[in-house]
């Protein structure tokens, strides 16, 4: 029974790690493709927090002893505190140095019917 529970935990842990890695890739593609600094910071900060949480909870489920679990939880706490703080500091610094957000209509491409 105990071995079965351990194998189930390892399976779920690997799934969570893979899900976190996929979320991380999605965030990086968002940072590459979004048109504006503020949209990019949104993509990066949200997916960093979610992906780090998923990966670290998955690694905890994979198991490695008491101290490894404690270290992983310390890393999770650090990322949960520092990630949003750094993102807020970045957005605040960009806004106070007059980086403009995109306005309405900035993204409209001239279509074929407009040109005709």
């Amino acid at each position, binding site marked *: 029974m105990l071995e079965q529970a351990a194998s189930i935990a390892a399976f779920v842990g690997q799934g969570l790690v893979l899900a976190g890695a996929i979320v*991380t890739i999605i*965030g990086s593609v968002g940072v*590459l493709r979004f048109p504006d600094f503020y949209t*990019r910071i949104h993509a990066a900060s949200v997916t*960093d927090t979610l992906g780090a949480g998923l990966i670290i909870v998955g690694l905890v489920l994979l198991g490695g002893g008491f101290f490894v679990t404690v270290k992983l939880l310390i890393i999770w706490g650090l990322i949960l505190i520092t990630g949003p703080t750094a993102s807020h500091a970045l957005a605040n610094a960009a806004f106070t140095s007059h980086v403009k957000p995109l306005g309405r209509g900035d993204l409209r491409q001239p279509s074929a019917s407009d040109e005709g």
Partner: protein
Amino acid sequence: MLVAAALAIFVSMSLMLVRAFAGPTTYDRLLSVNSFGSKTVLLIGVMGFANGRPDFLDIAIVYALINFVTTIGILKFFRYRTLEVSLSTRRRAVADASGERPDA
């Protein structure tokens, strides 16, 4: 499975490097460097578990701390153009740096 996750994190770090080189403003570059650092923390953890020797988590903790301090420090430098400003008394320090007399 863990190796696939490590490869995925590596690919996303490469995409972050592309944004760091291409980013039009300083803040874009700084955002991508910050995100690169937190992905490095995750990569260290996943690689340790994939090798079956998760002893490098201490390095990951230190990396997370250094990443945050680096971001805040670079932001402060690009705002005040010096690191010799205490963030709690910045008004007087900025007045000193610009040659004005600080308010009594």
